[in-house]
């Protein structure tokens, strides 16, 4: 049998095997929650039942739509900027040891700054428009991308590089034919971490000053004790983050079929 086919889109049976346990767990938690709110008669402004949250989400969908669109825009632009800057920095770090020594500590320090403290400053400097949100998202996202890509570039098997050199390859050929492809799994690891944080970055950016966005909606709902709307927004934020993450995973599988060969999947399964 040939085992070289890249992993196909999973069939129904496989999908159940793969996601069934998670779905079941979530369903159980929601069921317990629903029962608990009913049994102990918990007030809706303290903790609404999942059914009430679902109803609130459906009722508020007209309101949520434009806020969602705004947050998606901020997230995608911010993430795009982080990707561009992150890849460039990874490249610079890789090109010269001096640059690495100069940049790496700065990068780490940039991640120790509490975003929540910087966000208001960004509003003061750049106003209430798109830019401060994009910057917050970018700050949250670029670090994992830099580290993942730079580590990917560095971890290239030196024997592979030597092989190409022995075949008379130029530096350029070594870079594009060996080091770049070898760095891609690391880069995607960084991107997956980054995209998971990206939406929350946009929300924080909105909290400190905005007129539209899921963060604004959440804040207003909270101030008017519409706890059901707060939870509905949280659900939307989670769904958005999950959707973005899955999109990246999908792109990764298409881009790196060699990394997801059947043989390897089976080994992971066994572990």
């Amino acid at each position, binding site marked *: 049998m040939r085992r070289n086919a890249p992993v196909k889109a999973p069939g129904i049976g496989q999908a159940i095997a793969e996601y069934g346990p998670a779905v079941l767990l979530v369903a159980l938690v929601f069921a317990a929650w629903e029962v608990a709110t009913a049994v102990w008669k918990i007030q809706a402004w303290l903790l609404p039942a999942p059914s009430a949250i679902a109803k609130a989400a459906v009722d508020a969908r007209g309101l949520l739509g434009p806020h969602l669109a705004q947050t998606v825009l901020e997230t995608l632009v911010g993430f795009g900027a982080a990707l561009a800057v992150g890849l460039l920095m990874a490249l610079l770090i890789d090109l010269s040891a001096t640059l690495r020594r100069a940049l790496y500590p700065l990068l780490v320090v940039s991640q120790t700054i509490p975003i929540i403290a910087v966000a208001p400053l960004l509003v003061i400097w750049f106003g209430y428009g798109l830019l401060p949100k994009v910057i917050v998202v970018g700050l949250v996202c670029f670090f994992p991308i830099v580290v993942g890509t730079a580590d990917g570039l560095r971890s290239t098997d030196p*024997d*592979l590089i*030597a092989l190409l050199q022995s075949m008379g390859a130029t530096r350029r050929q070594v870079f594009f*034919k060996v080091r770049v492809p070898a760095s891609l799994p690391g880069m995607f690891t960084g991107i997956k971490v980054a995209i998971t944080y990206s939406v929350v970055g946009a929300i924080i950016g909105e909290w400190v000053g905005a007129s539209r966005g899921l963060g604004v909606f959440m804040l207003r709902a909270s101030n008017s004790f519409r706890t059901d709307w707060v939870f509905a927004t949280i659900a939307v934020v989670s769904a958005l983050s999950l959707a973005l993450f899955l999109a990246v995973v999908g792109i990764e599988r298409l881009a790196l079929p060699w990394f997801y060969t059947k043989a390897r999947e089976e080994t992971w399964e066994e572990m």
Partner: protein
Amino acid sequence: MNSCPDAPCKLELTGITKWFKVDGVPLKALEDVRLHARAGEFVSLIGPSGCGKSTLFNIICGLLEPDEGQVLLDGQVASRRAGLVGYMPQKDLLLPWRSVLDNVILGPELRGENLQESRREAKELLPLFGLEGFADAYPAVLSGGMKQRAALLRTFLTHREVLLLDEPFGALDALTRMELQEWLLGVWERFRKTILFVTHDVDEAVFLSDRVYVLTPRPGRVRTVIPVPLPRPRARSIIASPEFATLRYQLLEALALR
């Protein structure tokens, strides 16, 4: 077909010496290694682990520079020789993100040759290298023997006249190994390459070679050269002949000398 005593010298090493620095301490890996291979000759190097065989290959293919001595290709001093010989390293080193087909055409691709043409040629050779139907497979799904054959095909497709094979069958089971040895002889006779072959295996060296260089433990020096005048083409049955047994014993003796 016998060894080729009159053929011109394809490759010659004139007293190669190589030092390494390990934790600041100089270490002599090779000492005054002189050897040559004539056009179309199959020459083996045998010696204990760590005696510098891979180092010697790295020097010949241009990855390392010797501290003394020179590498001559076709009688000319080859100072910039990367890409002039086909080198198959000890590990198979296939690029994991490339299909078998795209792996084996790496040599022509790096030289900027026509890719379509190279792919066509490679496809024609896949069956001979036991890789039929695996053109689009990734290395991760190949068996150890198939990986070695793919790496060998890549080395052949560099179209260099001199091939350096560093223990190509070292990690394989005895049966696969035997099959591949016979197969390699077939391929070598068909393409008329000059092959320098590193091995630890006395039987392998005698079965394959025209001449065998025996190296000393580190620092690697040529202890002796043993010609193998067995007739060609050789079949597996030759290992049962008294001539084979004599050569084998001679080689073992040379290796065991203190």
